[in-house]
């Protein structure tokens, strides 16, 4: 033995192995351990799924009570046939985990404020995000929801079976079979629990009913005069065509919310300011849904359509599935993380959702005796605080301990979300704000879906959706017997006019919510004479006849154009509905274009400016890919809006509510000498023509840069892309060639839009179509990872196949998975 060379080479080998087995930080980024990551038998290569993969398997689980057969079709959609209903949920859980495990865990980690645990705190936004979620009471809300599940034996057994299915897959996982993201980030999946399912559903509540502008509006109210405020933030838009048409007679009012006597002095005229720059769920989390009755369709059968607009990610939020049990047979999209079909159809009917969008999250200012937060003042007495101590684990670091005060306001226990240690950048860290959020209340949302999946008629649908508390939704329904309906469902606080628009005093009961709108006063339509029902997140009712206050910020244009089109249509085919769902007409721009063109002082423009006016003039107000009109309009409008309002905002606090998009159009259409047109910072008085022409000149400068960068075409300017959940660009599908825009029915924006498009024709043999921008397999190395994206971007659909047990020999079947007990 040559001791010296032996020792040296052994040391080199050991050093190599140790280095390659360590997660190194390269150029500021943590890299995976190269040895294990590159090893073809352990690392990422193991995730490269053969393109000819068949997925056939024969599995045995003692957790099952009967036999389950799963047929995967050529799009990798599973058709689950189970002898026992709960076995179907076991298998659904198993399949969700098999194809979407990383995403399920990542989303629930986000919901529960646990991202620091896997991502560390190098980026301070991560710990802030976690604290924000904990302080909002996401875990608290999920725990309350879980207690409700535990009280309901049917739902509990479904959740138990689902959780067992997920865990059966996790237990079967070897290190080399872990999803790629675990290998990259360097952690392992933990066991699934029913609490995680509750957390996931609360995440949907956060996404859909977790938005508020209370602090921004509070600042705006303090800054503007009362008149200007009403002008800039009106409760109703001129182009509103409500979900439930004007003239509908509502149930007799049974709850009478009363504004406190001191409401003007301490609330409406209070000049306090909050400062804010927080991140919030997307403002445009909305959707379209409608159903047309047989009287308007070519086949004589109703057609139901739905396209929920959400953040677009890979892997997708949705997973397509058919579940067939002795009790029901349903097809649609499911949430990886929860049992059942969420949006879809069964053998008797179809159902879909759009977001209700009402304000169900209000803030109350709390007065503590001192900074220890041990006692707070309520109704003139000092009351003891309870504390929830949150331990936020941080990767490679000591945990962060956050203690959040919970105060009892009336009957509700609310977290004091913002205090001196955490303002979420929304207040000046000097005051205490408790949040009263409807999603904290006990409810059992999963019940809706298990009931809808087996619904046979309107009565079943009604019984199902009245379980929906938060997030409140406009639930559309159509059945084979010809019924159509739409209920603006949810449990909503009954508010007095203006309640909760701003931060409210929380020192006594006077400003608290005074009750909920009774379920039988929920506005709805059932087989209306006009032959259709529709919703697109616009204000649900006309303010003059509905007794409760519904807030002020609702997008009007999609609802307006959908109703207009549906009114005019007859002899409708499913293909007509697909064309409507993917329609790119921008109704807001169409209302503005006439006054833009007629007020443009073309003689003041040079040749290159004139060129853009010509593009505008030729534009048909459609946000189509391959055209330049939408880009010119968008840039012009942004400059126009700034020119009109920036002088009013010149001395405003840093973060403040900007006027709603529709304000400027509505204001000018009502009065061409719209009050805010004049630039108050100049001596002369500007006219509409001055402002339009000035904005065009400014826009032209920007447009030339955009054009020089080759981005004048709308799809390039807009840049629609579907990002991987961890924002890794190579795992994303960026720069898709697709049209649409925020005010078009096809509300496809840069990272947000129709997350599932569905058209169901309820003929004797149901005909159904659908598509979502993703793929069934969340594995980045699978050809099914993004296999629907191009079809979606092109506005095309797949026929949805409700498979029957007799079709097991069908050539669309790719593989069979048997689950035996």
């Amino acid at each position, binding site marked *: *033995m*040559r001791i010296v*060379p*032996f020792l040296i*080479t*052994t040391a*080199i*080998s050991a050093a*190599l*192995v140790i280095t*390659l*087995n360590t997660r190194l930080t390269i150029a500021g980024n943590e890299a995976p351990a*190269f*040895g*294990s990551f*590159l*090893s*073809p*038998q*352990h*690392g*990422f*290569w*193991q*995730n*490269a*799924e*053969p*393109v*000819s993969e068949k997925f056939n398997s024969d599995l045995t689980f003692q957790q099952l009570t009967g036999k389950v057969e799963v047929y995967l079709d050529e799009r990798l959609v599973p058709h689950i046939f189970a002898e026992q209903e709960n076995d179907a949920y076991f298998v659904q859980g198993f399949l969700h985990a098999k194809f979407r495990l990383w995403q399920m865990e990542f989303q629930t980690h986000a919901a529960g404020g646990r991202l620091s645990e896997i991502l560390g705190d190098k980026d301070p936004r991560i710990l802030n995000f976690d604290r924000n979620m904990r302080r909002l009471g996401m875990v608290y809300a999920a725990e309350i929801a879980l207690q409700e599940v535990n009280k309901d034996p049917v739902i509990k057994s479904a959740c138990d079976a689902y959780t067992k299915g997920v865990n059966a897959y996790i237990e079967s996982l070897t290190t080399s079979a872990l999803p*790629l993201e675990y290998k990259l980030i360097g952690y392992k999946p933990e066991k699934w629990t029913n609490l995680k399912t509750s957390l996931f559903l609360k995440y949907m509540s956060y996404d859909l009913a977790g938005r508020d502008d209370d602090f921004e509006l509070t600042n705006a109210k303090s800054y503007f005069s009362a008149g200007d405020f009403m002008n800039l933030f009106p409760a109703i838009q001129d182009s509103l065509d409500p979900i439930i048409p004007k003239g509908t007679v509502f149930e007799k009012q049974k709850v009478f919310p009363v504004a406190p006597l001191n409401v003007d002095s301490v609330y409406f005229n209070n000049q306090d300011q909050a400062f804010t720059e927080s991140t919030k769920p997307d403002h445009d989390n909305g959707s379209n849904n409608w159903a047309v009755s047989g009287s308007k369709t070519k086949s004589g059968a109703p057609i139901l359509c739905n396209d929920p607009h959400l953040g677009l990610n890979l892997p997708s939020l949705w997973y397509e599935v058919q579940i067939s049990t002795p009790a029901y047979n349903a097809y649609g999209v499911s949430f990886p993380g929860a049992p059942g079909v969420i949006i879809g159809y069964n053998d008797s009917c179809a159902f879909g959702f759009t977001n209700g969008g009402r304000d169900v999250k209000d803030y109350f200012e709390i007065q503590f005796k001192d900074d220890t937060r041990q006692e707070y003042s309520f109704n003139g007495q000092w009351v003891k605080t309870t504390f929830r101590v949150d331990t936020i684990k941080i990767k490679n670091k000591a945990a962060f301990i956050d203690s959040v005060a919970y105060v009892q306001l009336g009957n509700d226990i609310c977290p004091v979300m913002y205090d001196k240690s955490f303002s979420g950048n929304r207040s000046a860290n000097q005051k205490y704000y408790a949040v009263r959020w409807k999603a904290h209340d006990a409810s059992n949302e999963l019940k809706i879906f298990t009931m809808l999946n087996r619904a046979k008629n309107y009565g079943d649908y009604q019984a199902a959706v009245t379980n929906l508390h938060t997030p409140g939704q406009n639930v559309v329904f159509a059945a084979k017997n010809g019924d159509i309906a739409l209920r603006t469902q949810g449990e909503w606080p009954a508010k007095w006019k203006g309640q909760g628009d701003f931060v409210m005093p929380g020192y006594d009961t006077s400003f608290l919510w005074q009750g909920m709108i009774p379920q039988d006063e929920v506005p709805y339509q059932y087989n209306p004479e006009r032959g259709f029902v529709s919703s697109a997140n616009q204000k649900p009712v006309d303010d003059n006849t509905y007794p409760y206050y519904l807030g002020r910020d609702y997008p009007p244009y999609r609802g307006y154009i959908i109703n207009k089109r549906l009114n005019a249509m007859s002899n409708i085919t499913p293909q007509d509905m697909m064309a409507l769902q993917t329609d790119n007409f921008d109704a807001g721009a169409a209302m503005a274009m006439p006054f833009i063109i007629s007020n443009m002082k073309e003689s003041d423009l040079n040749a290159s400016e004139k060129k853009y006016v010509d593009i505008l003039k030729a534009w048909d107000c459609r946000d189509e890919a391959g055209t330049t009109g939408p880009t010119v309009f968008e840039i012009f409008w942004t400059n126009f809006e700034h020119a009109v309002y920036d002088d009013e905002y010149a001395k405003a606090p840093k973060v403040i509510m900007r006027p709603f998009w529709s304000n400027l159009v509505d204001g000018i259409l009502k009065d061409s000498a719209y009050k805010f047109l004049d630039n108050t910072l100049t001596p002369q008085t500007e006219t509409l023509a001055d402002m339009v022409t000035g904005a065009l000149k400014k826009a032209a400068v920007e447009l030339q840069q955009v054009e020089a960068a080759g981005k004048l075409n709308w799809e390039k300017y807009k840049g629609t892309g579907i990002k991987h959940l961890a924002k*890794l*660009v*190579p*795992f994303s599908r960026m720069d898709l060639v697709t049209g649409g825009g925020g005010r078009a029915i096809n509300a496809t924006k840069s990272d947000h839009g129709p997350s599932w498009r569905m058209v169901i024709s309820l003929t004797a043999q149901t005909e159904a179509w659908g598509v979502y921008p993703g793929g069934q397999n969340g594995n*980045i*190395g*699978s*050809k099914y*990872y993004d296999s629907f994206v191009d079809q979606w971007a092109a506005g095309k659909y797949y026929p949805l196949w409700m498979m029957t047990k007799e079709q097991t020999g069908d050539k669309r079947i790719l593989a069979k998975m048997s689950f035996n007990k």
Partner: protein
Amino acid sequence: MKFFISLILTMLLSFAACLFLPWWSIAIAAFVVAALIPQKPFKAFLTGFVALFILWGGISFWISNNNDHILAHKVSQLLIKMDNPYLLVLTTALIGALVAGFSALAGSYLRKTK
């Protein structure tokens, strides 16, 4: 002849070990083979190097080819900042080869007398 036997043995032992053990068992496999079958240090290094170059390069190419290189296209952009599946296969092969080469060298010195 020794070279080829060592080469084949290193490949087989590495492959088998990695079915049950972590990736670094290739180092042990190369070390053991080099210690059992004495060769000159440089030849031993070459045996380990070539064995794992072929093994890791071969497996990763085979996997990637069956995958139409879908994943390698994406991971190469992430890891080596260019879209080149073959370069990723080469990187994989070189990493395995280096580890096995040095381990085999160490193994050869264990047996080697002056």
